[in-house]
């Protein structure tokens, strides 16, 4: 009992020391101000192209971004979809007898304006898709479920953009066709595949709560852009090229209440829908579908469907918009201020000789360190929480006033980002305190902790190292903790450049923070040992 009182008194004493040194309080206030103000610099210095043509403002801009699904997640939703209406329950079956594609390995536009596929070479993208689709209309972002063959990831069932279930890992060729089937029973959709059309293997089920009674069913093809990302000094460049995929379907059968004609997108309709000048020159000009048996033929003869684009979640790309975590770019400024205060709270005791008094008052030395850690960690947490809770909405308000598009993050992810930032500052403060206890020199401790936390981040994210080395740094150094601010998701079913340079950390948010925690724990244990063993 007396022990607990003793520790409480120590904590109180440390709190008194902390709040009565004017410079330290100023440092903590500065930490909060830097976190918010430096975060503001980004959007304040930004303008987006849509409200300026050349140098002249057009005043005709809306905050726009990619289409969104029902949850707010940004999505790509472009495909060639041969469809008809199904009302109520039913089944769609089709046989995929051929699947191949073309892509431009050099990126850029078409080599010959007169020939949309000039310069393209044969080959499918890993996530080129051909299969059957049940969809809530043709509006971008609407709910769907699909059973599809992919370029190199086998047969899959995907639904509502973010869900992906693997089926048989086979490639579909003319020699080895595959049957695909989707059944609808109320809100439940079940996907199957088969080699012969009689024996069916279930791949997965989807529950689409808001699917209306009447849906569009049919066959589709899509093919995402081919992209090569090149990291070079001071940034990365992406070489993107359009691609095409062509799926040949026959034996298309729909059971249930489904009458009327098939809607067959005409060749070039994707470009027409795009409306952009010159769009007809690209591969979109050859996207569309034709009946295998000529115009007006029976669906059982099938369709040859050529598509471009993708049905998948959209990853934040260069220049398309800002990630939510970019509002916390000022964390680094706050972090440095907190590190300085934390290190000083220990080294200044050594400098002034106060440490002798402190240790005389608390002969069990470990408790002094613990009390300091509790006070500094707690205060840093509060400073970080307040600063992040102000910075996130404030920076977003500026972003919106500047017509910047900010990517979606779930409320849960935003809370994790804010609380994680506060924890990051708290753990870094304890880390700095421990290092300061070990080296007993303020400047050396501050420099060591800043170099350990900030330099790997610069090398991994804002600089030069190749992706492998950058990921290694973002895994093992204290900079791994910045993963806790990440809200963007690396989708396994979307090919993109998921490197630290683009804001994707190799560790999960909490695991990344735990790496910093581990560093702090080891440093704390060593500091505790040193403090107890050596003379002051």
């Amino acid at each position, binding site marked *: 009992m007396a022990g607990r009182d003793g520790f409480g008194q120590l904590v109180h004493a440390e709190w008194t020391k902390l709040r009565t040194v004017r410079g330290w309080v100023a440092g903590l206030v500065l930490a909060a101000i830097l976190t918010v103000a430096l975060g503001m610099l*980004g959007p304040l210095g930004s303008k987006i192209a849509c409200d300026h043509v050349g140098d002249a403002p057009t005043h005709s801009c809306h905050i726009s971004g990619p289409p969104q699904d029902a949850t707010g997640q940004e999505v790509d939703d472009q495909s060639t979809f041969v469809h008809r209406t199904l009302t109520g329950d039913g089944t769609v079956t089709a046989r995929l007898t051929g699947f191949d594609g073309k892509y431009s390995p050099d990126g850029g536009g078409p080599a010959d304006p007169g020939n949309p596929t000039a310069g393209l070479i044969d080959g499918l993208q890993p996530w080129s898709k051909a299969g059957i689709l049940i969809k809530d209309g043709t509006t971008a972002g609407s709910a769907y479920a699909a059973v599809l063959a992919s370029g190199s990831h086998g047969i899959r069932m995907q639904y509502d953009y973010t869900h992906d279930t693997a089926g048989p890992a086979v490639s579909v060729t003319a020699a080895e066709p595959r049957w695909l089937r989707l059944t609808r029973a109320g809100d439940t959709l079940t996907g199957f595949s088969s080699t012969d059309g009689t024996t069916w293997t279930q791949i997965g089920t989807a529950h689409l709560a808001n699917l209306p009674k009447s849906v569009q069913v049919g066959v589709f093809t899509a093919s995402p852009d081919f992209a090569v990302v*090149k990291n070079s000094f001071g940034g990365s*460049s992406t070489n993107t090229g359009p691609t095409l995929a062509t799926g040949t379907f026959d034996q298309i059968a729909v059971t249930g209440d489904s009458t009327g004609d098939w809607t067959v997108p005409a060749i070039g309709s994707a470009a027409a829908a795009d409306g952009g000048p010159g769009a007809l020159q690209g591969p979109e000009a050859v996207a569309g579908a034709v009946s295998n048996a000529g115009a007006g033929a029976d669906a059982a003869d099938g369709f040859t469907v050529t598509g471009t684009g993708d049905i998948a979640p959209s990853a934040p790309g260069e220049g398309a918009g800002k990630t939510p975590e970019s509002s916390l770019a000022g964390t680094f400024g706050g972090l440095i201020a907190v590190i300085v205060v934390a290190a000083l709270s220990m080294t200044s005791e050594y400098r002034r000789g106060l440490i002798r008094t402190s240790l005389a008052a608390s002969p069990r030395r470990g408790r002094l360190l613990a009390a300091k850690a509790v006070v500094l960690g707690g205060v840093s947490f509060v400073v970080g929480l307040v600063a992040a809770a102000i910075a996130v909405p404030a920076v977003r308000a500026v972003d919106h006033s500047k017509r*910047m598009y900010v990517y979606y993050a779930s409320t849960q992810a935003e809370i994790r980002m804010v609380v994680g930032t506060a924890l990051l500052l708290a753990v870094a403060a304890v880390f700095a305190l421990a290092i300061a206890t070990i080296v007993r020199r303020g400047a*050396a401790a501050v420099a060591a902790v800043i170099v350990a936390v900030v330099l790997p981040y610069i*090398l991994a994210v804002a600089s030069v190292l190749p992706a492998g080395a950058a990921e290694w740094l973002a895994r093992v150094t204290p900079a791994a903790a910045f993963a806790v601010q990440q809200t963007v998701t690396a989708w396994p079913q979307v090919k993109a450049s998921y490197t630290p340079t683009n804001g994707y950390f190799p560790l999960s948010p909490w695991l990344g923070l735990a790496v910093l925690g581990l560093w702090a724990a080891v440093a704390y244990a060593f500091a505790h040992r040193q403090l107890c063993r050596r003379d002051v």
Partner: protein
Amino acid sequence: MSGAVKASAFADALHAEWTKLRTLAGTAWLLAAAVVLTVGLSAVSAATVTCDGAGCGEDPAKVGLLGVLAGQAVVAVLAVLAVGEEYGTGMIRVTFAAMPRREAVLAAKAAVVAAVTAAAGVLAVAASALVALALEPGNGFTAGHGYGHLASAATLRAAFGSVLYLVLVALLGVGVTALLRDSAAAVGTVLGLLYLFPILAQVISNPDWHRHTMQLAPMQAGLDVQSTIGLAGQPLSPWQGLGVLALWAFGALGLGGLTLRLRDA
């Protein structure tokens, strides 16, 4: 006569500062750490960064001298401690009593710190450059990929400029510490000035602001001196960039000297 007295007084100040810095326990360790960190990180970078074809965009000099990013932090600590320790121990009062011309004390400190930094910098940069020259041709920095002989005049300028860069970072450290009078706060400020800009530049999408940030940032502008390719595309020419860092360093020294004169020790 009086000129000679002044000159000899400054020589005495230099000698005193040299003795102090030489006999500080940490100086040798810090200089050794600066060299080891610089060469180590440079070697890792030279060994891992590859050029996969013509126009790969990698700058062999920047790749081979990347360690300066880490070495500068140690140099900054050394410079800060050279001034901050005297404030920490109260020794600065004795120094000023013996040497009432405070600007001269600061100038002597700056000169001595610059000299030892230059010595360590020459060692670190030369070793980094030799490692890079040995490793980089094997990593694709070849004539076939558009790189001539790596040991060119531009590389020499990058190496020489990197040594000057380290010296200027040290002077920035001396100036900021004279201004703040506290080692830990000074190190935090100097490293913040160096390391925060590149992170902020990442989130600034406006090309004009981005360019101005890169031109203003002491580290980004200063490291322009290492560029040997794509000079037309960078915000400042190599020597202009180093000039920006020099403005930061001598600006801080000037302000530091001014406050030394104006306020109590």
